């Protein structure tokens, strides 16, 4: 389970995340929705242990920067960046060694096969196209079979087959009991499988809905998203909002 409690992150004077709290339970797919600059990627990086923050983040009850938490966390970053001088297969081997995995070869073969990378095993990182790099990044993130998985804009740069396969894998991981958090600004890409949605604006969670809520009330998540973002824009232009929104690129 992923627990985020009162997480605040500042870059100098700019407030990127402001007291964010939510939970993602085992077997739940939670999405972080928000326009550019809403603070989604900053929050994902805080959860992944890459940034300092105030507040509390627990991965299956362990403080997110502890080694135990890292063992149970998978992170697929927004920008794939493989080691230039490691082949695809050596990336798998490196992950296996870093996470002390046993009997990993079959799993690695299977993952690479699903993403049509099995014929690229001997390709160096610097020989891969951007889409291939993204696929490799996903394989690296999933190989340790993490219990909590963070995806930061995972569909960007993937071909249709890979998108279909990734969606299948996400659902499989959900069925296996993993807590999954997906950050995206493309609602269409996650529309079919989200369980809970957190809409972020200006570093805060402006609304949280479960699929059950929206199903029973008939509320349209897309309409809610636009209502929140448009109202935030008009507040900003009226000068009613006290704080500045996060700069572009912070995410």
């Amino acid at each position, binding site marked *: 389970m992923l627990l985020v409690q009162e997480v605040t992150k500042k870059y100098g004077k700019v407030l990127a995340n402001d007291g964010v709290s939510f939970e993602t339970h085992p077997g739940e797919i939670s999405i972080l929705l928000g326009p550019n600059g809403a603070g989604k990627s900053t929050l994902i990086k805080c959860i992944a242990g*890459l940034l300092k923050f105030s507040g509390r983040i627990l991965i299956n009850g362990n403080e997110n920067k502890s*080694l135990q938490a890292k063992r149970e966390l998978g992170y697929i*970053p927004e920008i794939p960046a493989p080691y230039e001088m490691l082949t695809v297969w050596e990336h798998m081997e490196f992950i296996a060694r870093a996470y002390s995995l046993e009997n990993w070869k079959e799993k690695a073969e299977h993952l690479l096969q699903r993403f049509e990378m099995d014929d690229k095993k001997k390709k160096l990182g610097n020989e891969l196209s951007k889409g291939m790099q993204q696929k490799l990044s996903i394989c690296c993130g999933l190989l340790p079979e993490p219990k909590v998985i963070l995806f930061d804009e995972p569909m960007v740069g993937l071909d249709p087959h890979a998108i279909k396969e990734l969606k299948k894998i996400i659902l499989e991981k959900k069925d296996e009991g993993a807590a999954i958090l997906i950050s995206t600004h493309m609602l269409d890409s996650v529309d079919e499988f989200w369980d809970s949605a957190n809409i972020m604006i200006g570093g805060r969670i402006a609304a949280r809905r479960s699929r059950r809520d929206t199903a029973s009330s008939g509320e349209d998540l897309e309409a809610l998203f636009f209502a929140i973002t448009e109202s935030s824009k008009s507040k900003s232009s009226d000068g009613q909002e006290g704080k500045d929104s996060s700069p572009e690129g912070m995410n």
Partner: protein
Amino acid sequence: MKALAYLTLTQIKNRILSLKKKPGLLILYSVLTLIVVGSFVLMIIFSGETNAEKAADERIIYLIISALGLLFVYTFVTTGLSTGSSLFNMPDVGLLFVAPISSKKILFYGLLNTMGKSLLASVFIFYQIGNLRNAFDYGFKEIFILFIIYASMLVSCQLLAIGIYIFSNGNPSRKNLVKAITYTLYAALVIAYLVIQRQQQTGLLETILRLVSSEGFAYFPVAGWSVMLFAGVAHNLPVKIIISVVLFLIMGAVIIILLTSGKADYYESVLVSTETSYQIRKAAREGRNVPQTNSKKIKVRDNAFGIGKGSRAMAIFYKHLLEHKRKSRLIFIDGYTVFMMIAAGMAGYYFRTYALPEFAYYGVLATAVYFQYFLTVMGKLKQELTKPYIYLIPDSSLRKVFAASLSSLIKPCVDGCFIFGILAAVSGHNLPECAFFALAYAASGAVFVGLTILYQRVLGGQPGTVLKVFIGMGLFSLVLGPAIAPSIVLAIILPDSLRFLCTLPYSVISILFAVLLFVACGNLIDKSEYTGSAAFK
């Protein structure tokens, strides 16, 4: 094998194996290795022959070490105040930082990697074995310690940048404190220089040499410690060696403790610089414009909002004007202009009493033209050619090329007036000659703009930096050579009273050449392919 050892060894192995696919690089490395090995063999063979009485002033080596050290310290302090430095790269962030490996072990891995790279970067010192032996009568010991010193300076300055970033990030008062300390240290050097000059009545070079070999300078961070270490090793002075090594170690230890204190949370501190350097490398590899790392935030002022003027191709020129205005209120007068004015002013001041100061002023012109070459070929026109808009604007190719070049043609004219105006004012040299210097400078700018167009027309893109240097050297001899020759002839045949006209043939030929390039390659946009980005690939 543990993950970090596996990662390091596999990367080294693959890097070596990848040379099989790059025979050119393999030959280059082999030749460079042969040169180093050959130099060592020759040094061993001739180790008995000493040349001590003919050796040059050793303080020149102190000066070189000091200059490098001072430059590194200033550069890395500036980096530390903006993005920080990094011992890591992006794959480390995405794969290593999130892995269940102790952050202290990861830091050790980063440090070892950086040290290895610094040692490799320092290998060039061994190519100077012959020169160092001939000029200073140095043996293996001295050359090896120079190698170690260079690598230590690189590593310690990178650590310094990280330390400063951790200390000052998000805290303006701490940033000001770091700036104040840095400026005080450098100001102290200037004061020390003035004191030595006043007390000992020495010239420019001698004063600097006395300064860098003084006891006080030996305690200047990194630069002074490096000089102390070298002097200690070269003259077998163990106390100096111990003090300098201890100072380096203390600095490294303090920063490592700062990095690993508390929850050992240095990931964020290296993240910004890692992402920045990754984006720069990626952009360079894809042939895109390198993103600006300058952290200075440009404020959009109301009086500099909107392009305002220009239609069709000329919209590009007015866009450039706006971009210049955003960077500097005085549009074409920017940091480079000020830097060159100061340099020209200092040269004018120091050389005014020389017997033939005009030779020194020709040196100023040559240096300014040299800098201008790089500034122009990497300037606005090059940037414009790497974006699709210029190809899409409905106007003639020649007009678009001219509009995209216009700001690059005007800037050297403005810079030339200021640089050589200052030179004339400070040196009291005759004004017409300085005016013709300014014209020559502006004309060189026109040639370099023409060359940028030529690169794109002939090569279908802009060559890399190394290639630019070689092409630049070729250009100086092939194109500027015939332009310089008539100027030299004129200098010989003209009487003193008309010698200010010497640079005129050079300027005229350069302008003619630039016009020729524009006419010949003006159809560039219609004929060449857009190669600026991987977007269409």
